[in-house]
């Protein structure tokens, strides 16, 4: 033994993560087209959301049907504090995290004590409440027409207000989020989380406080969403409730399912595909609902671990069979 956590492991890690960073940097150097850079920025923001949701769904085996609400809470907390009250954007971002963390705690405590369906319903209900409040609380949110005049973020005097500059911020964040998430999955808590997904009874019999763990990961994934929301607000300099509705929550779930449950890198893929597709195919918009529905049903019926992960699993199994493992 000893090889697993030894040099070999660090080398593997080093390669994968530096490669990713290098590729992202290369893209920034080569791409000058603002449209593509913006698209990449949105992929990055979505990727943060999807990785968080995947930690909850793919690893924890729980589901949130209101993740758009946490995204929206983050975005609006940042937006309102900076645009209306002139708070420093970085402080506002932290405020967003606190708001989302508390909200997730309040929903998670009662819902997670119960059967698996309750979190789904509670988050769905929460998503709709938030959506209604964003539309109705005119004095603060600007109502359906949205909130504008949100300042850009700045780093050491440098205003991050072009797609190119934002690209660095967003993809650096994506990189860090992916790294942190991969670490988490491979840690003591992450193992308990994956265990919980496969057999809650066995996990409990080994001393894992599954209720607490579910709550933790739910809050954790809400924090990712809040972070993505704040980035979104400062990227667009404008937010409106329409971006945070039920369909966006469904879109996020579809991204997870497409990229594969319990797959950090698949999340990136899922986010990329479903962000780019509507841009490439204008007609896609009309069919969006029906296509998402079809993807969700078909993938879950035939490959319940999601598309990418499902295919990986099949390959893995075949490999074992070939090696003659009884």
């Amino acid at each position, binding site marked *: 033994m000893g090889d697993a956590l030894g040099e070999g492991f660090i080398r593997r890690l080093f390669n994968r993560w530096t490669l990713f960073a290098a590729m992202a940097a290369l893209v920034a150097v080569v791409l000058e087209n603002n449209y593509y850079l913006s698209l990449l920025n949105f992929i990055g923001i979505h990727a943060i959301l999807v990785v968080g949701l995947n930690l909850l769904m793919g690893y924890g085996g729980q589901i949130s*049907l209101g993740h758009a609400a946490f995204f929206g809470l983050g975005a609006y907390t940042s937006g309102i504090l900076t645009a209306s009250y002139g708070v420093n954007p970085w402080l506002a971002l932290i405020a967003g995290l606190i708001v989302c963390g508390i909200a997730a705690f309040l929903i998670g405590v009662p819902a997670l004590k119960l059967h698996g369906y309750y979190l789904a319903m509670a988050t769905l209900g929460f998503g709709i409440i938030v959506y209604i409040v964003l539309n109705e609380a005119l004095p603060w949110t600007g109502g359906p027409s949205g909130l504008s005049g949100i300042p850009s973020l700045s780093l050491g005097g440098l205003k991050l207000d072009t797609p190119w500059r934002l690209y660095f911020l967003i993809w650096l964040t994506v990189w860090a989020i992916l790294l942190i998430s991969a670490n988490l999955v491979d840690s003591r808590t992450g193992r308990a989380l994956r265990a919980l997904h496969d057999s809650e009874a066995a996990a409990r019999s080994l001393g894992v406080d599954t209720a607490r763990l579910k709550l933790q990961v739910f809050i954790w994934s809400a924090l990712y969403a809040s972070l993505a929301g704040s980035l979104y607000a400062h990227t667009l300099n404008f937010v409106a409730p329409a971006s945070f509705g039920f369909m966006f929550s469904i879109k996020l779930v579809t991204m997870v399912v497409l990229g594969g449950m319990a797959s950090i890198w698949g999340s990136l893929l899922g986010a990329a595909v479903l962000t780019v597709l509507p841009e490439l195919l204008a007609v896609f918009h009309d*069919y969006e609902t*029906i296509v998402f529905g079809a993807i969700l049903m078909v993938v*879950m019926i035939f490959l319940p671990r999601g598309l990418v992960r499902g295919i990986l699993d099949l390959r893995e199994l075949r490999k074992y069979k070939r090696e003659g493992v009884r």
Partner: protein
Amino acid sequence: MDIFAPLLQYLISGLTNGAIYALIALGFGIIYNATTIINFAQGEMVMLGAMAAISFYHLHPSLPLAFAAGMGVVTVVGVVFERLALRPVKDPSPITLIIITVGGAVFIKGAAMMLWGKDAYPLPPFTGNVPIYLGTATVLPQNLWVMGLTAALVLALEAFFRLTLAGKAMRACAYNNRAARLMGISAGRMVQLSFGLAAALGAGAGILIAPLTLGVYDMGLMLGLKGFSAAIIGGLGSLLGGVLGGLVLGVAESLATGFISSGYRDAVAFLLLLLVLFLRPQGLMGGGK
């Protein structure tokens, strides 16, 4: 007297909506009892019921016929949905089933949008639109239809569960799934029956409400969610609980609309839902598992 007059009016509209929620809630409960699945596509059955009845009425302007045909078609959709989307599932963990039924809901909604477009369509009230005056409050004949037919459907359901063999078998399954299977009750048939029954109830709710609210492709989500909230408030799987939950929710909503603000009307259901989850997760009538 000043506050009492609107109160009666709110009560009437609250009970009307509550009756609709109750029907939807019963659908959730029936499927839950047979399978322990929460069918997120239940709301879409409501929408399909309304839209199908409207289309049938267009083809042949007879309301009873449209009602029956609408319910019939949606019942088939419910059964087919179970057969195609849920039966083949190899790994029936809650998250898989949630995603599939959510996917089904979204798919049905998308299909309805392509079929009927985004417009809202009317269905004529069952017997005219001449209001009846109750003191200062008014009741539309359709309000009475909704409440009356809901009561009739609930009674029919109760009779079905108490008197028929299939109904008794379903109750046995709900009470003790394992034992029921040992006694030779085919679980598969019960599941199919429950999906058909739930879809029919949902469709009925949709057709009853359509004359008051119009039918639109995206009406299913909200109604489904409120039906679910009603089911949880009353106690999931309990017939009386579902009815009670629906009525409580309907009245609460209508009072909030009247006394607070109509914008927040839809939030009431979910606040109540979260409240019940907090304070009494087994619901008003639920005795726990």
